[in-house]
């Protein structure tokens, strides 16, 4: 009995001596009224999909590495088959100055660029290497996966990443085995230095290999769906008040030759395609804070192996005005055009007008150590 009490005291004593971790909270609220023309989707009075909450707990480890536990949830589209809440981020991250390891569910490297759209999935079919295991009922299964990701950073800017994923398989939802692997090479200027870098802010290549079961092929590589991504962000006008950049991404899907018509979403993600998407963005800053932002962009997706012209086109433009810290009011217009099989699959040409209120917040409390990309750590000695 004595021993048990002693152990209990010991544990409680150690528990009391814990260092409170850094506590990061991120929140994004997107509330829009949607008006659709020529669409199969109904209008919406208040659409709050893509609203999300993110929480991260970070601490230094004993050997100068750092660890973070992240838990995030998202409110998906009503008809997404994901329920009321989707836990989009549940992962652990271990990192030091030059290495990053991620384990858990988070964004997969199926997109190397963040485009200035109201919601992350507004140009989904053009900017993501799509999950060939998904039935396409929702967009989250293309963006998020259970990942095992190792990244090594060379000279603060060159990120070499090798990763494996378990993408959600709509036909076998209980299969959690590795079904994708990939490699990416990215040159990226750290966030704190981007505003004044001439021209190249980011440039990257990514290769994703999805281990699909291709009829008639036994070799894993031959039977897989392969995607190659090229992405870049160019500073057209690096300026702290009037900032202009151009973002571009191309995705080549080396799909299966035998898919010449689209019967379902599986065919769509597994057939050969070439996607191009780009945006121009103008950001006006006032007193070192965003004031308003205007962007215009478009994309084209060619599905060249199909028997009927089924190419897709998108045009998207939006503007956001900052009403106060973290709060924006925004407007977005999107036009999408589908031909042939894609029209059968995704509907006719659509005009969508959206008026939105957006709240975005990210803050770290109880901060205890500098980030890798802090100016002090970048430009002076890195402190472990």
């Amino acid at each position, binding site marked *: 009995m004595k021993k048990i009490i002693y152990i209990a005291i010991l544990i409680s004593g150690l528990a009391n001596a814990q260092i409170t971790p850094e506590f990061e909270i991120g929140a994004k609220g997107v509330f829009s009224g949607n008006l659709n023309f020529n669409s199969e989707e109904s209008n919406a009075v208040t659409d709050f999909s893509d609203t999300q909450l993110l929480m991260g707990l970070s601490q230094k480890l004993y050997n100068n590495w750092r660890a973070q536990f992240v838990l995030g949830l998202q409110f998906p589209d009503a008809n997404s088959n994901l329920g009321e809440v989707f836990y989009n981020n549940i992962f652990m991250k271990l990192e030091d100055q030059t290495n990053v390891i991620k384990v858990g569910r988070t964004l997969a490297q199926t997109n190397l660029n963040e485009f200035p759209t109201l919601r992350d999935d507004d140009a989904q079919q053009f900017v993501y290497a799509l999950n060939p295991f998904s039935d396409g009922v929702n967009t989250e299964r293309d963006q998020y996966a259970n990942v095992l990701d190792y990244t090594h950073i060379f000279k603060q800017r060159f990120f070499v990443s090798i990763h494996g994923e378990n993408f959600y398989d709509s036909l076998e939802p209980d299969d959690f085995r590795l079904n994708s692997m990939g490699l990416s090479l990215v040159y990226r200027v750290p966030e*704190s230095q981007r*505003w*004044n870098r001439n021209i190249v802010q980011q440039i990257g290549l990514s290769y994703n290999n999805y281990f699909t079961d291709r009829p008639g092929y036994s070799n894993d590589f031959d039977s897989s769906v392969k995607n190659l991504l090229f992405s870049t962000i160019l500073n057209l006008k690096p*300026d*702290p*008040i009037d900032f202009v950049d151009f973002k571009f991404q191309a995705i080549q899907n080396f799909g299966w030759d035998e898919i010449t018509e689209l019967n379902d979403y599986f065919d769509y993600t597994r057939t050969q395609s070439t996607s191009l998407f780009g945006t121009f963005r103008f950001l006006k800053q006032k*007193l*070192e*804070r965003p004031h308003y932002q205007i962007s215009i962009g478009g994309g084209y997706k060619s599905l060249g192996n199909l028997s009927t012209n089924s190419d897709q086109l998108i045009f998207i433009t939006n503007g956001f005005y900052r009403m*106060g*810290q973290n709060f924006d009011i925004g407007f977005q217009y999107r036009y999408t055009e589908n031909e042939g099989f894609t029209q059968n699959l995704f509907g006719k040409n659509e005009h969508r007008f959206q008026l939105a209120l957006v709240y975005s917040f990210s*803050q770290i*409390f109880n*901060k*205890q150590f*500098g980030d890798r990309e*802090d*100016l*002090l750590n970048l*430009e*002076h*000695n890195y*402190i472990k």
Partner: protein
Amino acid sequence: MDRRDFLATGAVSTAGMLFFPGNLLAKEAKTANQTRFAQPLPYTMDGEWKEFELYIDLHTHEPAPGFKYHTLAFNDMIPGPEIRVNSGDKVRVKFINKTDLNHTIHWHGIFVPWRMDGVPYVSQLPVMPKNEFIYEFVAEPEGTHFYHCHWGTLMHMQAGMFGSLIVENPKDPIKEKFPYEREYTLVYSSHDTNYIREEMNGMLERMKQRSYLMKQGRFTSEQWGVFDNKEQFLASMENGYQPPYVTNRRSNAELPQANWFTVNGKSYPSTPYLFIKSGENIRVRLINAGAETHHLHLHGHDFWMVADDGVPLEHPWKRNTVPLTPGKTFDIIIEGNNRGVWTFHDHDTRKVTNNGLYPGGNLLALVYEDLPADELIISKHSGNPMYNPNAGMGDMKEMDNQKMGNMNKMMFGDDKLPKIALDE
């Protein structure tokens, strides 16, 4: 051999391997201790002017072994080098700003011409990145003073931009009343290292943008937050400008809460020692360059308060605890009349911590050089029951001498004082 003999033998042999009678009293320890005090800044003569050079740059500082943070440091040291001149000297200081931030130097307690006072937008414009400024003044009044940056003072001072400035009087009344040969300068400060890091990162980022806009002639009063007069400021507000202290600009969630407390830039166990001999007087110049009050208490002695803000006191008085408030300097005389090793520390013990853990902070010691080595041996003078073979210790009474000796060695190391304790 009984246990007491064993311990004593062990102590002698261990100490013999080092520099008997122990690290603290060895010549090497005294030499190393000199690096824990700011060294006088060399000068050159230009006619009747003593010319000094101070530069400011970013620096990685280690207040105690194993903990580092980025700071701003004069001449790559915290505190900056000591400027030591005679009363009436003509002093010229060339100040070079090597950083991407703005700075000035304020000469705290010195009767400088007002345009040399170092207050941005009051007595001068800030010394901009990669620029220089020449400060000139006559060194008066005599006494213990200091210098510090007066730009972004809340952050820049605790980041390390301070140093002592001693104006000596060849006919010093204090020295006449309390003859002394040795003196020490102790500069106290307190630091919120998290606040420093976040503020420095923010300032560096903003200054890069501001410098860019300045070069292009596109930098405005509103962006800078600096106005020619109140009318201009109010007119801007009528046009929709909101001052930075309202809701539209950056702000830290909280004011700094210091988590490191330093003397001469160091925290225990890296703090300096004050060496003294029996019968000797030493003068200690206390400077508070931080934003916290330090209630400094010396064990085993009363000391003489001999100067306040550099002004010699006509009637010195004795005390053993002194509240050193922010911006304050005191001079004290310690008489070597009670041989030993005595701590001198903040009696607000929240400041005897490193990152929240006691002991640490500004804990330091007054050390008598003539202390017999014998007195450092724990087992010879300690009343600790561990060293009394007839004392309790429950089950340990059954231990034989060999085991007891091994256990003591394991728990307490060498049989001598003082030790470094990092967690009580």
